[in-house]
């Protein structure tokens, strides 16, 4: 046991200090200064364990303080830093530099389909509006026993476990080609959050099925699976949308 543990230092542990230079090309847009977005190159010295967020911080803190992006927790749970990295939606704080092809520049731009505000920041209001529209809260008229929890079997709880993981980062919705061309479409994230309640055995409402049985609802989904590939939480988004379609056709489970 003892030697086994001592020998098993992680190959890419915190003590590796091999740095290398990466070129990061960022789509910049400073309102009031730039009329159109423009691409700007930065060279940064990075460690293999660094994340794309570290590269952005290095640029902001050491080269150009005006570079603007959202971030908070820096480990993939707050959902602030979804962006397009080499053409794919990801969280900057969950994308390790070493997992990208560093022989080429790293291209970073804001997520698509939402109004661009500044650099990597978009207006999130239309996204949250869709979320709020699906009534994303438990609707149950029956009263639980005074001072007691509602009973739910582990199987019933497991039924909607996947969609409870959503962090509302918008990586899925802003990777959806339908959403790019039709901003009225609810989009995958709102449907995922409807799914979370539709399949919760404690919920007693059909209202979300009516809301999503709409021309801007689930039927717009063309199952391109971009959303599932984009989800940093590994949620089976396309499957959840398919399950909501089934529930509309066959009634709430």
């Amino acid at each position, binding site marked *: 046991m003892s030697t086994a543990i001592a020998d*098993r230092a992680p190959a890419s542990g*915190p003590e590796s200090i091999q740095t290398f230079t990466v070129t990061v090309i960022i789509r910049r847009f400073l309102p009031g*200064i730039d009329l159109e977005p423009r691409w700007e190159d930065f060279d940064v010295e990075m460690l293999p364990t660094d994340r794309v967020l570290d590269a952005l911080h290095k640029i902001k803190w050491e080269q*150009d303080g005006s570079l603007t992006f959202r971030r*908070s927790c820096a480990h993939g749970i707050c959902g602030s830093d979804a962006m397009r990295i080499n053409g794919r939606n990801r969280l900057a704080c969950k994308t390790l530099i070493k997992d990208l092809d560093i022989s080429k520049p790293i291209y970073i731009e804001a997520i698509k389909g939402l109004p661009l505000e500044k650099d990597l920041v978009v207006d999130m209001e239309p996204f949250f509006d869709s979320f709020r529209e699906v009534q994303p809260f438990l609707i149950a008229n029956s009263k639980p026993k005074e001072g007691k*929890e509602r009973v739910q*079997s582990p199987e019933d709880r497991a039924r909607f476990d996947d969609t409870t993981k959503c962090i509302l980062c918008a990586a899925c919705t802003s990777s959806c080609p339908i959403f790019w061309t039709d901003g009225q479409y609810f989009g995958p994230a709102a449907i995922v959050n409807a799914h979370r309640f539709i399949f919760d055995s404690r919920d007693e409402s059909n209202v979300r099925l009516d809301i999503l049985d709409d021309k801007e609802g689930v039927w717009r989904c063309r199952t391109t699976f971009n959303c599932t590939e984009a989800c940093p939480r590994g949620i089976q988004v396309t499957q959840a949308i398919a399950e909501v379609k089934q529930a509309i056709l066959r009634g709430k489970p």
Partner: protein
Amino acid sequence: MPTESDSTVVDGVHYHQFDVVIVGAGGAGMRAAIEAGPKVKTAVISKLYPTRSHTGAAQGGMAAALANVEEDSWEWHTFDTVKGGDYLVDQDAAEILAKEAIEAVIDLENMGLPFNRTPDGKIDQRRFGGHTAEHGKSPVRRACYAADRTGHMILQTLYQNCVKFGINFFNEYYVLDLVMTPVTASDGTTSDKPSGVVAYDLATGEIHVFQAKAVIFATGGFGKIYKTTSNAHTLTGDGVGIIWRKGLPLEDMEFFQFHPTGLAGLGILLSEAARGEGAILRNSEGERFMERYAPTIKDLAPRDIVARCMATEIREGRGGGPNKDYVYLDITHLDPAVIDAKLPDITEFARTYLGVEPYTEPVPVLPTAHYAMGGIPTNVNAEVLSDNTTVVPGLYAAGECACVSVHGSNRLGTNSLLDINVFGKRAGNNAAAYALTVDMPPLPPNAADWVINLVESARASNGTERLSAIRKELQDSMDRNAQVFRTDETLNEVTRVIENLRERYKNIGVQDKGKRFNTDLLEAIELGFLLDLAEVVVYSALSRKESRGGHFREDYPTRDDANYLVHTMAYLTGDAHSADAGDHIRLDTKPVVITNYQPMERKY
């Protein structure tokens, strides 16, 4: 977003009126909003979108003696909380926390929170550090949980219910000042009463004054004074800093919790729930070293103790890795199915960030700055205090920014998600009830001037000092000198560093001169709060010449109840910008409330 339409604009400043204004949209703020919102006109003002708040990063669970899986009682929970806090806990508050825990968990379940369930469909519970049956005899299953994303589910559920109640949110509005209006009482004495807050709208750069009958601070912690921390980049202690600058006291600031199991080198948290589910801490020899230090509950000893034991193992040469500078969290003996069901997120963190497969390899871990036990002093009604006993009418605080004190010198795991729910609810209820009894206080003239000046002088700053360099030097020095182990010498060293950095801060340069989404400007202002608070933390730590809970002084290694069984109260006096902390910080003490439990030696 904000649905209220009756705001006015005067000289470019927006003015709003609400009965209750809540600063911060984490767990405590939104729990308060759910109480206040349906009763009075309420606004929540948040630097972030609500679902970005750091409550969402909490993992392991929320304590409540539901006794769903084994015998438990709120009285045992009270005792554990008091003992866990090394007897610096106010016992009346701890009793409220433990008693109201049960209702707090049921509230959340009824709101829709998807807790993990027992086979018969009740809320499942698991073990956590320092939570025991029969006053320390054995670990008890008290933590209610939703996999290892309990905080995420609490934050989501509270936001969902705020949507349901149509709460007004002002997202990405950064509150920078508490407005106080001088009021003359019938006996001729004058005192300051809160009349609102002033916020900077990050999207537009415009200033908003929120006039209010009651204000609740729920702004979270300030872990970013340290380098290695589980805290978000945005946790810069703005709310606590605002209160400090107003001349109101801060309590027990020397007590900061270092969570034992941060990913080595990164500080990202691996929940204590791992040890609750059976994970074991091992040194380089593979030894389960906690057996030597805490023979009864071993790896489930409270965090301050485990963090110190880990640091001791490393100091004595039993750390792992090429530099022998971390220990291991071992879950390789757990069934992968159990890991996937109960600890999915933290195992993914180890894979993503360290490239370690927790099914088969132990994970390198190190203590990480995690939680401020101290903060804005309140009574059990969440009312903010201006000294040991005097309430500031209409001002409330709850959550990590507050010090009730239910955590004393060391918080037990799962008691923070509990704290935000119990005292967030109390704050919301009490602020709404208060707002129903008073008229709208008048704003003082030029209420926004101080903030306009702060923002504009930061924007105009063209100095040669880089923000990031100052911040890094602060964080490095705090890690080196004011972490798990402290001495007079190390604390004096970091005092000198902070003094120097505060001088250099006057000469910073902000590169972004724009109005919209100016995060460069935001970081400059945040750094000012970090420097202020680090100074208070270190100054308070220097004065406590004993070791208790999260504050361990190598030069005074034992607890000294004769001299230090008291809370520290720090006041800003004199010129806040004078170099020497002693010129502008005054320390006082406040008695600890002891009801049922006399201080004993703390053994586990």
